[in-house]
Protein backbone atom coordinates (compact mmCIF):
# COMPACT_ATOMS: atom_id res chain seq x y z
CA UNK A 1 0.00 0.00 0.00
CA UNK A 2 1.08 3.56 -0.61
CA UNK A 3 1.54 6.21 2.06
CA UNK A 4 -0.69 8.97 0.62
CA UNK A 5 -3.86 8.45 2.59
CA UNK A 6 -2.08 7.60 5.81
CA UNK A 7 -0.29 10.94 5.49
CA UNK A 8 -3.44 12.86 4.58
CA UNK A 9 -5.32 11.38 7.53
CA UNK A 10 -2.45 12.12 9.91
CA UNK A 11 -2.15 15.69 8.64
CA UNK A 12 -5.87 16.23 9.22
CA UNK A 13 -5.83 14.86 12.75
CA UNK A 14 -2.64 16.73 13.71
CA UNK A 15 -3.99 19.97 12.24
CA UNK A 16 -7.05 19.67 14.48
CA UNK A 17 -5.02 18.70 17.57
CA UNK A 18 -2.62 21.60 17.19
CA UNK A 19 -5.41 24.09 16.54
CA UNK A 20 -8.06 23.21 19.11
CA UNK A 21 -5.52 23.65 21.88
CA UNK A 22 -5.97 27.39 21.48
CA UNK A 23 -9.59 27.02 22.59
CA UNK A 24 -8.26 26.07 26.03
CA UNK A 25 -6.50 29.40 26.40
CA UNK A 26 -8.53 31.80 28.53
CA UNK A 27 -8.82 35.46 27.69
CA UNK A 28 -7.32 37.68 30.41
CA UNK A 29 -9.97 38.97 32.80
CA UNK A 30 -9.80 42.71 32.38
CA UNK A 31 -7.81 44.93 30.05
CA UNK A 32 -4.87 45.76 32.36
CA UNK A 33 -1.37 44.31 32.21
CA UNK A 34 -1.93 42.64 35.62
CA UNK A 35 -4.72 40.54 34.11
CA UNK A 36 -2.14 38.83 31.89
CA UNK A 37 -0.07 37.45 34.72
CA UNK A 38 -2.24 34.50 35.83
CA UNK A 39 -2.50 33.34 32.20
CA UNK A 40 1.25 33.26 31.56
CA UNK A 41 1.85 29.71 32.83
CA UNK A 42 -0.95 28.31 30.72
CA UNK A 43 0.36 30.22 27.75
CA UNK A 44 3.80 28.65 28.30
CA UNK A 45 2.09 25.24 28.51
CA UNK A 46 0.34 26.00 25.22
CA UNK A 47 3.61 26.98 23.53
CA UNK A 48 5.34 23.83 24.81
CA UNK A 49 2.44 21.60 23.69
CA UNK A 50 2.42 23.28 20.27
CA UNK A 51 6.15 22.67 19.89
CA UNK A 52 5.79 19.02 20.99
CA UNK A 53 3.00 18.34 18.49
CA UNK A 54 5.07 20.15 15.85
CA UNK A 55 8.04 17.95 16.65
CA UNK A 56 6.00 14.75 16.38
CA UNK A 57 4.51 15.87 13.09
CA UNK A 58 7.96 16.74 11.71
CA UNK A 59 9.32 13.41 12.85
CA UNK A 60 6.39 11.59 11.21
CA UNK A 61 6.86 13.68 8.09
CA UNK A 62 10.56 12.85 7.84
CA UNK A 63 10.07 9.15 8.44
CA UNK A 64 7.20 8.85 5.95
CA UNK A 65 9.12 10.80 3.30
CA UNK A 66 11.37 7.81 2.83
CA UNK A 67 8.76 5.10 3.48
CA UNK A 68 8.01 3.19 0.31
CA UNK A 69 5.53 0.60 1.46
CA UNK A 70 3.05 0.28 4.32
CA UNK A 71 0.69 -2.44 5.55
CA UNK A 72 -2.21 -2.85 7.97
CA UNK A 73 0.07 -2.95 10.96
CA UNK A 74 1.58 0.40 10.03
CA UNK A 75 -1.93 1.86 9.88
CA UNK A 76 -2.72 0.51 13.34
CA UNK A 77 0.56 1.76 14.77
CA UNK A 78 -0.19 5.16 13.24
CA UNK A 79 -3.63 5.22 14.86
CA UNK A 80 -2.06 4.27 18.18
CA UNK A 81 0.33 7.21 17.79
CA UNK A 82 -2.50 9.62 16.89
CA UNK A 83 -4.46 8.46 19.93
CA UNK A 84 -1.72 9.54 22.34
CA UNK A 85 -1.08 12.73 20.43
CA UNK A 86 -4.78 13.63 20.61
CA UNK A 87 -4.54 13.57 24.41
CA UNK A 88 -2.17 16.55 24.43
CA UNK A 89 -5.03 19.13 24.28
CA UNK A 90 -6.77 17.18 27.04
CA UNK A 91 -3.77 17.48 29.38
CA UNK A 92 -3.48 21.13 28.38
CA UNK A 93 -7.05 21.66 29.58
CA UNK A 94 -6.24 19.93 32.85
CA UNK A 95 -3.25 22.23 33.33
CA UNK A 96 -5.60 25.11 32.59
CA UNK A 97 -8.05 24.10 35.28
CA UNK A 98 -5.80 22.66 37.97
CA UNK A 99 -2.63 24.64 37.28
CA UNK A 100 0.88 23.24 37.27
CA UNK A 101 0.62 20.58 39.96
CA UNK A 102 2.49 17.34 40.48
CA UNK A 103 -0.25 15.32 38.84
CA UNK A 104 -0.76 17.49 35.78
CA UNK A 105 3.00 17.60 35.19
CA UNK A 106 3.15 13.81 35.50
CA UNK A 107 0.20 13.36 33.14
CA UNK A 108 1.94 15.49 30.51
CA UNK A 109 5.04 13.32 30.89
CA UNK A 110 3.07 10.08 30.56
CA UNK A 111 1.41 11.31 27.36
CA UNK A 112 4.79 12.41 25.99
CA UNK A 113 6.36 9.06 26.89
CA UNK A 114 3.54 7.17 25.14
CA UNK A 115 3.84 9.41 22.07
CA UNK A 116 7.58 8.69 21.93
CA UNK A 117 7.01 4.97 22.41
CA UNK A 118 4.32 4.86 19.74
CA UNK A 119 6.64 6.59 17.26
CA UNK A 120 9.20 3.87 18.02
CA UNK A 121 6.51 1.24 17.40
CA UNK A 122 5.51 2.99 14.15
CA UNK A 123 9.13 2.89 13.02
CA UNK A 124 9.25 -0.83 13.89
CA UNK A 125 6.15 -1.59 11.80
CA UNK A 126 7.48 0.48 8.88
CA UNK A 127 10.70 -1.52 8.97
CA UNK A 128 8.75 -4.78 9.16
CA UNK A 129 6.69 -3.76 6.11
CA UNK A 130 9.80 -2.91 4.11
CA UNK A 131 12.85 -4.53 5.71
CA UNK A 132 15.56 -2.86 3.63
CA UNK A 133 13.76 0.50 3.72
CA UNK A 134 15.82 3.70 3.79
CA UNK A 135 14.36 4.28 7.27
CA UNK A 136 16.70 1.60 8.61
CA UNK A 137 19.60 3.35 6.95
CA UNK A 138 18.54 6.77 8.23
CA UNK A 139 18.01 5.72 11.83
CA UNK A 140 20.99 3.37 12.05
CA UNK A 141 23.11 6.03 13.71
CA UNK A 142 21.99 8.45 16.37
CA UNK A 143 20.22 7.71 19.60
CA UNK A 144 17.78 10.62 19.75
CA UNK A 145 14.75 8.33 20.00
CA UNK A 146 16.17 6.29 22.87
CA UNK A 147 17.44 9.39 24.66
CA UNK A 148 13.95 10.90 24.41
CA UNK A 149 12.25 7.84 25.89
CA UNK A 150 14.84 7.63 28.68
CA UNK A 151 14.43 11.34 29.40
CA UNK A 152 10.66 11.03 29.76
CA UNK A 153 11.01 8.02 32.07
CA UNK A 154 13.42 10.07 34.16
CA UNK A 155 11.12 13.11 34.09
CA UNK A 156 8.17 11.04 35.32
CA UNK A 157 10.17 9.52 38.20
CA UNK A 158 11.65 12.87 39.21
CA UNK A 159 8.28 14.57 38.80
CA UNK A 160 6.88 12.81 41.86
CA UNK A 161 9.26 14.75 44.07
CA UNK A 162 10.21 17.76 41.93
CA UNK A 163 7.68 18.69 39.21
CA UNK A 164 9.98 21.54 38.17
CA UNK A 165 12.72 19.04 37.24
CA UNK A 166 10.25 17.22 34.99
CA UNK A 167 9.26 20.49 33.31
CA UNK A 168 12.92 21.32 32.66
CA UNK A 169 13.39 17.91 31.05
CA UNK A 170 10.34 18.50 28.82
CA UNK A 171 11.88 21.72 27.55
CA UNK A 172 15.31 20.11 27.16
CA UNK A 173 13.87 17.28 25.03
CA UNK A 174 12.01 19.85 22.90
CA UNK A 175 15.27 21.75 22.37
CA UNK A 176 16.95 18.51 21.35
CA UNK A 177 14.41 17.99 18.57
CA UNK A 178 14.28 21.57 17.37
CA UNK A 179 17.38 20.74 15.41
CA UNK A 180 15.64 18.86 12.62
CA UNK A 181 16.58 15.31 11.77
CA UNK A 182 19.16 15.72 9.04
CA UNK A 183 19.48 11.99 8.52
CA UNK A 184 16.31 11.81 6.46
CA UNK A 185 17.05 15.00 4.56
CA UNK A 186 20.39 13.64 3.42
CA UNK A 187 18.62 10.54 2.11
CA UNK A 188 16.01 12.37 0.06
CA UNK A 189 18.38 14.81 -1.59
Amino acid at each position, binding site marked *: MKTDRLN*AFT*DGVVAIIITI*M*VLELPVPKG*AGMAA*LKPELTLFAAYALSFIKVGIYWSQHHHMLQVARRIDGRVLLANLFFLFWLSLVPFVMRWVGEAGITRDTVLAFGVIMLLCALSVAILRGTLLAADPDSPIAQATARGRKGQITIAAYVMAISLGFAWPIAAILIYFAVAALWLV*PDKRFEQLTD
Partner: protein
Amino acid sequence: MTPGRLNALTDGVVAIVLTIMVLELKFPAEPTLGAVLKVLPFLAAYLLAFIYVAIYWNNHHHMMQSAHRVTGAVLWANHALLFWLTLFPLMIRWIDEAGVTALPTAGFGLVLLGASTCYLLLERALIAAEGEASGVKRALGRGMKERVSFAGYALALPLAFVSPFVSVAIYVAVAISWLIPDRRFERNLQG
Protein backbone atom coordinates in the same frame (compact mmCIF):
# COMPACT_ATOMS: atom_id res chain seq x y z
CA MET B 1 11.81 16.35 0.64
CA THR B 2 8.79 17.69 -1.23
CA PRO B 3 6.34 20.26 0.19
CA GLY B 4 3.17 18.14 -0.22
CA ARG B 5 2.62 17.33 3.43
CA LEU B 6 3.73 20.73 4.66
CA ASN B 7 0.98 22.22 2.51
CA ALA B 8 -1.56 19.67 3.71
CA LEU B 9 -0.85 20.40 7.38
CA THR B 10 -0.92 24.15 6.78
CA ASP B 11 -4.23 23.94 4.93
CA GLY B 12 -5.69 21.90 7.76
CA VAL B 13 -4.55 24.29 10.47
CA VAL B 14 -5.59 27.41 8.56
CA ALA B 15 -9.00 25.93 7.75
CA ILE B 16 -9.59 25.23 11.44
CA VAL B 17 -8.29 28.65 12.55
CA LEU B 18 -10.68 30.35 10.13
CA THR B 19 -13.54 28.17 11.28
CA ILE B 20 -13.12 28.27 15.05
CA MET B 21 -13.08 32.06 14.97
CA VAL B 22 -16.72 31.94 14.02
CA LEU B 23 -17.42 30.13 17.30
CA GLU B 24 -16.53 33.36 19.07
CA LEU B 25 -19.35 35.22 17.32
CA LYS B 26 -22.47 35.78 19.38
CA PHE B 27 -25.96 36.86 18.63
CA PRO B 28 -26.87 40.33 19.86
CA ALA B 29 -28.33 40.09 23.36
CA GLU B 30 -31.69 41.46 22.20
CA PRO B 31 -33.25 41.86 18.78
CA THR B 32 -32.82 45.64 18.88
CA LEU B 33 -30.69 47.98 16.82
CA GLY B 34 -28.82 49.06 19.97
CA ALA B 35 -27.79 45.50 20.76
CA VAL B 36 -26.70 44.93 17.16
CA LEU B 37 -24.58 48.10 17.25
CA LYS B 38 -22.91 46.79 20.38
CA VAL B 39 -21.58 43.69 18.64
CA LEU B 40 -20.41 45.62 15.56
CA PRO B 41 -16.85 46.33 16.79
CA PHE B 42 -16.43 42.65 17.45
CA LEU B 43 -17.80 41.72 14.02
CA ALA B 44 -15.26 44.11 12.54
CA ALA B 45 -12.48 42.43 14.54
CA TYR B 46 -13.66 39.07 13.26
CA LEU B 47 -13.66 40.32 9.68
CA LEU B 48 -10.17 41.80 10.02
CA ALA B 49 -8.76 38.62 11.61
CA PHE B 50 -10.42 36.50 8.90
CA ILE B 51 -8.91 38.69 6.18
CA TYR B 52 -5.46 38.47 7.75
CA VAL B 53 -5.54 34.69 8.01
CA ALA B 54 -6.78 34.53 4.41
CA ILE B 55 -3.94 36.83 3.31
CA TYR B 56 -1.40 34.56 4.96
CA TRP B 57 -2.92 31.52 3.34
CA ASN B 58 -2.95 33.19 -0.09
CA ASN B 59 0.66 34.29 0.18
CA HIS B 60 1.71 30.89 1.48
CA HIS B 61 -0.16 29.26 -1.39
CA HIS B 62 1.49 31.48 -3.95
CA MET B 63 4.96 31.02 -2.53
CA MET B 64 4.65 27.24 -2.21
CA GLN B 65 3.61 26.99 -5.87
CA SER B 66 7.22 27.77 -6.73
CA ALA B 67 8.78 25.58 -4.03
CA HIS B 68 10.04 22.11 -4.82
CA ARG B 69 12.16 21.31 -1.86
CA VAL B 70 11.71 21.63 1.90
CA THR B 71 14.16 21.16 4.76
CA GLY B 72 13.83 20.85 8.51
CA ALA B 73 14.34 24.60 8.80
CA VAL B 74 11.43 25.19 6.43
CA LEU B 75 9.19 22.91 8.52
CA TRP B 76 10.07 24.80 11.69
CA ALA B 77 9.60 28.22 10.18
CA ASN B 78 6.22 26.99 8.96
CA HIS B 79 5.26 25.58 12.38
CA ALA B 80 6.21 28.91 13.95
CA LEU B 81 4.01 30.73 11.45
CA LEU B 82 1.12 28.36 12.25
CA PHE B 83 1.66 29.00 15.96
CA TRP B 84 1.01 32.71 15.52
CA LEU B 85 -1.93 32.13 13.20
CA THR B 86 -3.62 29.93 15.82
CA LEU B 87 -3.58 32.89 18.22
CA PHE B 88 -5.92 35.01 16.08
CA PRO B 89 -9.07 33.38 17.52
CA LEU B 90 -7.79 34.08 21.05
CA MET B 91 -7.11 37.73 20.26
CA ILE B 92 -10.55 38.36 18.83
CA ARG B 93 -12.10 36.67 21.87
CA TRP B 94 -10.09 39.07 24.01
CA ILE B 95 -11.27 42.05 21.97
CA ASP B 96 -14.81 40.74 22.39
CA GLU B 97 -14.48 40.69 26.17
CA ALA B 98 -12.34 43.77 26.82
CA GLY B 99 -13.32 45.88 23.81
CA VAL B 100 -10.99 47.85 21.56
CA THR B 101 -8.71 48.83 24.44
CA ALA B 102 -4.94 49.21 24.63
CA LEU B 103 -3.83 45.72 25.64
CA PRO B 104 -6.02 43.56 23.38
CA THR B 105 -5.25 45.84 20.43
CA ALA B 106 -1.53 45.59 21.17
CA GLY B 107 -1.99 41.82 21.52
CA PHE B 108 -3.51 41.68 18.04
CA GLY B 109 -0.46 43.64 16.81
CA LEU B 110 1.89 41.23 18.56
CA VAL B 111 0.26 38.28 16.77
CA LEU B 112 0.60 40.13 13.44
CA LEU B 113 4.22 40.95 14.23
CA GLY B 114 4.94 37.32 15.18
CA ALA B 115 3.25 35.97 12.06
CA SER B 116 5.05 38.37 9.75
CA THR B 117 8.42 37.63 11.38
CA CYS B 118 7.85 33.91 10.89
CA TYR B 119 6.73 34.45 7.31
CA LEU B 120 10.00 36.30 6.64
CA LEU B 121 11.88 33.39 8.26
CA LEU B 122 9.93 30.97 6.07
CA GLU B 123 10.96 32.91 2.97
CA ARG B 124 14.59 32.80 4.09
CA ALA B 125 14.46 29.08 4.85
CA LEU B 126 12.85 28.33 1.47
CA ILE B 127 15.44 30.37 -0.38
CA ALA B 128 18.18 28.56 1.56
CA ALA B 129 16.62 25.23 0.56
CA GLU B 130 15.95 26.15 -3.07
CA GLY B 131 19.01 28.21 -3.85
CA GLU B 132 19.59 31.78 -4.95
CA ALA B 133 18.73 30.96 -8.55
CA SER B 134 15.35 29.46 -7.64
CA GLY B 135 11.91 30.68 -8.63
CA VAL B 136 11.15 31.55 -5.01
CA LYS B 137 14.15 33.85 -4.78
CA ARG B 138 13.42 35.45 -8.13
CA ALA B 139 9.79 36.07 -7.23
CA LEU B 140 10.44 37.42 -3.75
CA GLY B 141 13.21 39.76 -4.80
CA ARG B 142 14.07 41.95 -1.85
CA GLY B 143 10.69 41.44 -0.20
CA MET B 144 9.95 45.12 0.29
CA LYS B 145 6.24 44.66 0.95
CA GLU B 146 6.89 42.19 3.76
CA ARG B 147 9.35 44.60 5.34
CA VAL B 148 6.97 47.54 5.12
CA SER B 149 4.19 45.45 6.71
CA PHE B 150 6.54 44.36 9.47
CA ALA B 151 7.43 48.00 10.16
CA GLY B 152 3.72 48.87 10.16
CA TYR B 153 2.96 46.31 12.87
CA ALA B 154 6.05 47.30 14.89
CA LEU B 155 4.79 50.88 14.82
CA ALA B 156 1.17 50.00 15.57
CA LEU B 157 1.94 47.86 18.61
CA PRO B 158 3.25 50.61 20.93
CA LEU B 159 0.76 53.11 19.45
CA ALA B 160 -2.06 50.95 20.84
CA PHE B 161 -1.17 52.32 24.26
CA VAL B 162 -1.59 55.86 22.95
CA SER B 163 -4.71 55.29 20.87
CA PRO B 164 -6.00 51.83 19.96
CA PHE B 165 -7.85 53.26 16.99
CA VAL B 166 -4.63 54.49 15.36
CA SER B 167 -3.30 50.92 15.59
CA VAL B 168 -6.50 49.52 14.13
CA ALA B 169 -6.21 51.99 11.24
CA ILE B 170 -2.66 50.74 10.54
CA TYR B 171 -3.81 47.10 10.68
CA VAL B 172 -6.58 47.86 8.20
CA ALA B 173 -4.23 49.81 5.91
CA VAL B 174 -1.68 46.96 5.80
CA ALA B 175 -4.45 44.43 5.17
CA ILE B 176 -5.75 46.47 2.23
CA SER B 177 -2.25 46.60 0.75
CA TRP B 178 -2.22 42.78 0.75
CA LEU B 179 -5.72 42.28 -0.65
CA ILE B 180 -4.14 42.47 -4.07
CA PRO B 181 -2.61 39.00 -4.14
CA ASP B 182 1.10 38.57 -4.48
CA ARG B 183 1.59 38.96 -8.24
CA ARG B 184 5.29 38.21 -8.04
CA PHE B 185 4.75 34.47 -8.06
CA GLU B 186 2.04 34.49 -10.73
CA ARG B 187 4.28 36.49 -13.04
CA ASN B 188 7.14 34.15 -12.41
CA LEU B 189 5.13 30.98 -12.94
CA GLN B 190 3.81 32.23 -16.27
CA GLY B 191 7.13 33.62 -17.40
